[in-house]
């Protein structure tokens, strides 16, 4: 039976908090990449060429139905085999961006399909250009539909970041492993990781729910 030691907890707290910063950075950068990749993958399925659409669709399905952990190892170990030097951090960002980009592309697709067809027809009847239709009519209506999904994946990426420890990114889990190896105490580091995740992800999830409510209210009030 092992007792919880508060002195040890406070001793390792600064290093844990420093690592939390890295975790947040990894989640934030990974999310930004995923948001952009998702957009590209969504547009890649709406091109005039059917072949491109089908190929992008299959690639999305492949990435979505295989584990992030295996993809992480694939990118990290395969790039050097072909002479590409990719640091653990860059491999991680690339993999997270691609993996969650496929999920976000589905969110965007659902949101665009959620805008009623009549909106497009009305814009065509008013002789708006496609770009203008997207910018002023479709996207403002698609955004509140996409928001819950986008928020979920922000928290989702945050919760997947411990996997990055496996290829050596110095985030929270990696630091907890290192502390455990140095001191032979695993109880405090691993428990602290759990609680740090909890105190970040619960308020974030709640904040996102508020944001969704605010956006849908604003949209409801401001449409012409």
């Amino acid at each position, binding site marked *: 039976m*092992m007792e919880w030691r508060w002195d040890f907890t406070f001793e390792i707290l600064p290093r844990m908090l420093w690592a939390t910063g890295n975790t947040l950075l990894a989640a934030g950068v990974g999310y930004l990449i995923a948001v952009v990749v998702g957009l590209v993958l969504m547009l890649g399925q709406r091109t005039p060429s059917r072949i491109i659409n089908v190929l992008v669709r299959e690639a999305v399905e492949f990435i979505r139905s295989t584990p992030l952990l295996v993809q992480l190892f694939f990118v990290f170990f395969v790039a050097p085999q072909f002479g590409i030097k990719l640091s653990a951090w860059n491999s991680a960002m690339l993999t997270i961006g691609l993996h969650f980009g496929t999920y976000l592309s589905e969110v965007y697709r659902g949101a665009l399909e959620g805008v009623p067809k009549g909106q497009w027809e009305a814009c065509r009847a008013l002789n708006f250009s496609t770009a203008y239709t997207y910018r002023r009519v479709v996207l403002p209506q698609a955004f509140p539909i996409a928001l819950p999904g986008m928020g979920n994946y922000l928290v989702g990426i945050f919760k997947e970041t411990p996997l990055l420890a496996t290829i050596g990114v110095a985030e929270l*889990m990696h630091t*907890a492993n290192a502390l455990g190896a140095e001191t032979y105490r695993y109880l405090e580091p691993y428990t602290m990781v759990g609680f740090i995740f909890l105190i970040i992800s619960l308020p974030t999830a709640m904040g996102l729910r508020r944001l969704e409510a605010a956006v849908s209210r604003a949209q409801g009030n401001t449409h012409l």
Partner: protein
Amino acid sequence: MSYWEFLAEYLPKLASGALMTIGVMICATLLAAAISILFGLMRLSRNWAFQGPATVYIEFFRGTSLLVQLYWIYYVLPLMGLTLTPFVSGVLALGLNFGAYGAEIVRGGIQSVPRGQWEAARALNLSVSQQMRSIIIPQTFPIVLPPVANLTVELLKATALVALISAVDLMFVAKQINATTWLSAQTFGTALLIYYVMARIALIPFLRWLEVLAARKVGKA
């Protein structure tokens, strides 16, 4: 070494790892399903003694990371006198984690059955358990199954994490082969393909078939 030679030598090993992956997945799915139903119903209870613990459990497991939960069960529980094998730890962590997500699906599914169905069932003088069994539950299946299908695919993917606590699954075998041969593209590429085949050719069609079956059953009823 050509890719065919690689397959001839290492595919049997990868396949035995895949069998372990399937074993972990089936056990974890069963555990998660049981937890989902139990906690989904508890969450709906008006009694705080049921609803409170269910809410805490669901928020806790959804708010923290699966890998953290897995490490905690495998590395910290032994310090408290409970040592579990990698397989059992993996199944337990996956079941508890996905059970929390599943409980929310069950709750949503039951809540989405129109009130009129409850009222009509009561008007027909059915007991509460009869109302649940023959009126409410059958109607939740078509609502619940699509998100359950997504979650099951996520669970299959998440089983790869058990390799990190040295359960000998597909990912673990792939890591071993990679460490001895350094044929990373072949090794992890093949592992990815096997995961893809399991998800796209076996699991997803099976879940779609269940969805169709459930929809048809309700349509007939």
